[in-house]
């Protein structure tokens, strides 16, 4: 059922165009990577602040608010470029464990970022036990790292 869906996606004109082109895949990949750098910065600067290793004394709430548009913007670019890359090789992804690991991490990371982490940064400094801040930071970095590593691994087969 899912495999049929993946096969259908791969055979859409978009999938065929990207697969058939010499340079479309690398160009989309480049945008995917550039957005990765931005999302990495937007996530890490808040997580490292929550963990207490960067910008001490800077209100965490303001920092998260400043980083938010870049987090959301780069996530949108990543999702669009990622879907396009996926479209061109959907059945290869279906057979690749790394793809499923990445999708699981991605779903968890997005969910965690926009619920738990947002609540913690909104609460601000002293809003929650500092120990919780650190745990949230570690979980966030771990989940997003899983997305990154899983993604890189799709390229190896």
């Amino acid at each position, binding site marked *: 059922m899912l495999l049929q869906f993946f096969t259908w996606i791969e055979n859409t004109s978009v999938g065929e165009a990207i697969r058939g082109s010499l340079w479309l895949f*690398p160009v989309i990949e480049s945008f995917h*990577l550039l957005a*990765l750098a931005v999302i990495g*910065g937007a996530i890490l600067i808040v997580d490292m602040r929550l963990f207490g290793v960067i910008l001490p004394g800077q209100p965490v709430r303001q920092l998260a608010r400043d980083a938010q548009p870049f987090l959301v913007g780069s996530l949108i670019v990543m999702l669009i470029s990622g879907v396009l890359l996926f479209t061109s090789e959907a059945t290869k992804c279906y057979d690749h464990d790394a793809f499923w690991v990445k999708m699981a991490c991605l779903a968890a990371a997005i969910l965690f970022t926009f619920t738990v982490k947002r609540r913690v940064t909104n609460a601000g400094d002293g809003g929650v036990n500092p120990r919780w801040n650190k745990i949230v930071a570690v979980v966030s970095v771990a989940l997003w790292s899983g997305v990154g590593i899983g993604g890189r691994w799709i390229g*190896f087969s």
Partner: protein
Amino acid sequence: MSLHRLFEWLADTPWSVELHESLWAYPIIESVHVLFLCLFLGLAVMFDLRLTGLSLRSMPVSKVYHRLLPWTQVGFVVMVLSGLLLLYGIPLRTYENIFFRIKAVLLVLAGLNVFVFHKGIYRSIAAWDDDPVPPARVRLAGYASMFLWASIVIAGRMIAYNWFDKTQNPSG
């Protein structure tokens, strides 16, 4: 010894062959390279965004600079080391790759940009440290940095594609 001979020699060293043929080492090093891209470039971009007045406007530039710099340095060292290992794993083919050469030139330009920023623009920081949107030349430095690093990332990604490979048989 010419550069070409140097890379030829590198390609023949046992560890290079080992790295090239390993099932796990090369992908792991590449993953490290990509992950630390987030640390190094992610934080560098956050600083550039502060320079351009696009984010972190309520924080003094000097504070962002001093707090982020140690971490971007850590990220940079890991990027250089993992990058050198990736180069060492496929020396000759990479050396002959046009995108690798473009990336090398861009990296020199990025280094130059950092040097100019430190020795020039940053000296007058007292005058614009608290500006939500710093003066034009400071913003220009931020945009230049982001443009250079974006180009470096794109060139780096393109190294993997061998459209212009001199050797159609990639073996070293």
